């Protein structure tokens, strides 16, 4: 992350990174996760799943901040995020 000066609480604050898991064949392609991801990590893929829907795909997986918004909004229990690691804030 880029800052114009080092934040005063930089030693306390850590930026989490999430690992995204998509259960592709359970997805119904509603697009909720794609629309509301605050970091625009997801897009609906071109590929079909076995039911004929377009499941999401993480195109900017490294930007995921483990907010779990996609996991909560998904009506199909088809996407979830686990905590991968935390990065210290560097100026």
């Amino acid at each position, binding site marked *: 992350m880029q800052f114009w000066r080092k934040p005063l609480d930089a030693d306390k604050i850590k930026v989490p990174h999430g690992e995204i898991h*998509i259960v592709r064949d359970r997805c*119904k392609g509603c697009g*909720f996760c794609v629309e509301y991801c605050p970091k625009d990590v997801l897009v609906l893929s071109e590929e*079909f799943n076995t039911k004929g829907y377009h499941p999401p795909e993480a195109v900017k997986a490294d930007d995921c901040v483990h907010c779990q918004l996609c996991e*909560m909004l998904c*009506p*199909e229990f088809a996407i979830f995020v686990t905590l991968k690691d935390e990065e210290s804030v560097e100026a």
Partner: protein
Amino acid sequence: MATKNNNVPEHPMERLLRMDRIPHIWCPTCGIGTAVSCFISAIDKFKHPHEKIAVVSGIGCTGRVAGYIKLDSFHTTHGRAIPFATGLKLANPDLKVVVFSGDGDLISIGGNHFIHAARRNTDITVVCVNNFIYAMTGGQCAPTTPLTANSSTTPYGNHERPFNLPLLASSCGAVYVARWTSLHIRRLTNSMHEALNKPGFSFVEVVAPCSTLYARRNRLGTGLDLLKFYHDSSEICHGADPTELDIAFQDKIKVGKFIDRERPTFIDAWNDNMKKKFGDKFDPYGEKKAKKAA
């Protein structure tokens, strides 16, 4: 080209879902699944043994919830979720009983039970998913359909004044009343958690998109378009006067926690009354009995 499931680990919500029934029957972009996710998160936060929680649903799209949740659950006949839940609670006061059903089931067919359970302050939590229409039966006008909205029985627009659910619940005596949309995932989860912890009749209304009937008949797009509409049109008004919470067609939706008050529950009122009458000869029923034994 079809893709197979990549080796995905188990979804954390699978612990509380009957996975043999998933995928569920709800349409793509329906909001009920999101309400269930929030409910599962609230159950996770709620410090109560899972074997002592029961979920009861009636009939309808939301009525399917009891069948998907891996807790003791029951799918009752139409409108009768609340009387079934009342019986469960009275026969086994240690249970936390949750009614999870739709607007048509709870407020129309089961409307009578709803008002009396609130009046008695029966110790149950009622989650009502309001999608403004009878969805499972083909999009008929419901007691929550906004004025002028199209439904299969009101092709020229609805002229019947709909219920304002928070007002109905609070005027009948509910001790906890909140309303959120299915986009307010964190606030909805917190409200469900608060409602679960509240002794007495707690009520949470969840405004959710019905893409196949309500949105299609009214040309509102998909459920995703409705989520965007909720984002732009909902206003958080904690403690608002319930008389001001009517929902007009595609107009502002006031959300928040409106009522949080104390009243003796049905069992407490019974115990107090009998205690006055019979003094120490009366053995209090329910939780108090458990406390006495301890």
